[in-house]
């Protein structure tokens, strides 16, 4: 084995991206838990915790810039480096969306308009997509990445179903418009999280195989 320091840095980069993925997944999980229980403290934790995720993104970006400028990675190394940067950007956006969900939670007045069933289900799907996409990243598993991306269709279907339901409820009862419109935003955020998970799957496929696939 040659270029020991270089290999070490590539390993650190990979581990940091994996670690950042776990933090983003936690943020999504907690933001929905906070929404479900209208737990403002938990929502605040998600908002505050976003700084750590932003720091991860910055350190990954710095590491990538240094690897490119100092080590000139090529072939599989180059694909890993560029994929890590792209995945970090997606994870950072997903965490911002978790923050948006937490902010919406703070704006809900009183109780929910109805017990939340489909939204937590949608969140579970988005969270699972992220988790599986990151497993695919860790194992360079192209077929897992491709199958994970397909789950986004189910998130999209749920999004439209819940959106229609909320619109219907608002038409029937104007007093719920504030809370219902915040839930509309939340399902939109979750739908976007699913899209970012698809982007990660695309990066995984590129990293592992060199193929550029459109999985979105």
């Amino acid at each position, binding site marked *: 084995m*040659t270029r020991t320091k270089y290999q070490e840095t590539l390993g650190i980069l990979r581990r940091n991206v994996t670690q950042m993925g776990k933090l983003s997944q936690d943020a999504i999980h907690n933001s929905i838990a906070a929404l479900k229980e209208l737990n403002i403290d938990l929502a605040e934790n998600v908002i505050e915790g976003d700084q750590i995720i932003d720091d991860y993104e910055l350190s990954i970006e710095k590491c990538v810039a240094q690897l490119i400028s100092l080590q*000139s*990675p*090529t*072939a*599989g190394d180059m694909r890993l480096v560029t994929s890590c940067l792209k995945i970090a950007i997606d994870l950072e956006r997903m965490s911002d969306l978790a923050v948006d969900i937490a902010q919406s939670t703070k704006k809900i007045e009183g109780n929910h308009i109805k017990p939340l069933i489909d939204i937590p289900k949608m969140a579970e799907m988005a969270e699972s997509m992220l988790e599986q996409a990151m497993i695919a990243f860790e194992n360079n598993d192209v077929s897992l990445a491709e199958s994970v991306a397909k789950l986004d269709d189910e998130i999209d279907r749920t999004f439209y179903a819940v959106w229609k339901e909320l619109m219907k409820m608002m038409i029937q009862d104007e007093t719920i418009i504030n809370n219902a419109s915040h839930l509309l935003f939340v399902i939109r955020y979750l739908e976007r999280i699913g899209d970012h998970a698809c982007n990660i799957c695309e990066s995984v496929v590129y990293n592992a195989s060199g193929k550029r696939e459109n999985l979105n």
Partner: protein
Amino acid sequence: MPENYDNGTEVEVRDLNLWYGENHALHDISIDIPKNSVTALIGPSGCGKSTFLRCLNRMNDLVKNCRIEGKVHIDKQNIYSKDVDVVDLRKRVGMVFQKPNPFPMSIHDNIAYGPRIHGTGKKNIRGVVEEALRSGALWDEVSERLDKSALDLSGGQQQRLCIARTLAVRPEVILFDEPCSALDPISTSKIEELILELKKKYTIVIVTHNMQQAARISDYTGFFLTGELVEFDKTEQIFESPREKATEDYITGRFG
């Protein structure tokens, strides 16, 4: 091997084998080198890339106990055919070496040497020298001192002089054997710029240990290992997604 080059094939090699005495140095090399493009040959020391390069203008004929089998066609002509004039072949297939090797004579005479041998008259020689020095990106630096010794030029200028000397006899193919390994970064980038310019008129084959150089200037890259051509493809393919693990390991610095 990539197919359907835009400008056609200049050099066609099939099942080339070479022995230095008992040492089987090249194994069944088959490659199509495209016209008007830069082809880089990379690989660890002793892998056969320079040996292969020297097959393209029969420089290995000069090596004792060297035996060659297989086919090397340049512009559809078998260069190992008995009726090939080797001096004429080396005019068609020029070569630039690792260390600049100007003749111990004036800048002008360095360039004029080849054309004079090949019959260019006194009247035309000045024009040929200027054209070659311009094409070699050296004219502006030496036009006022053509009668000065070429040995007084800097290393980078000497190397461009050697390129200009090759151009003066109007070759079809130019072989570069690590042309920048003895040069500083500025001189290196001048040579690289020059090579990119030259490919418009000539077919270039370059052996280099500098992977980034191969990536920067070549259109196609061949990776040699222990006398075999492991992989030959478009340069972006080799450096982004090589098909062979050995290529990947070499260009990412895991061995070599």
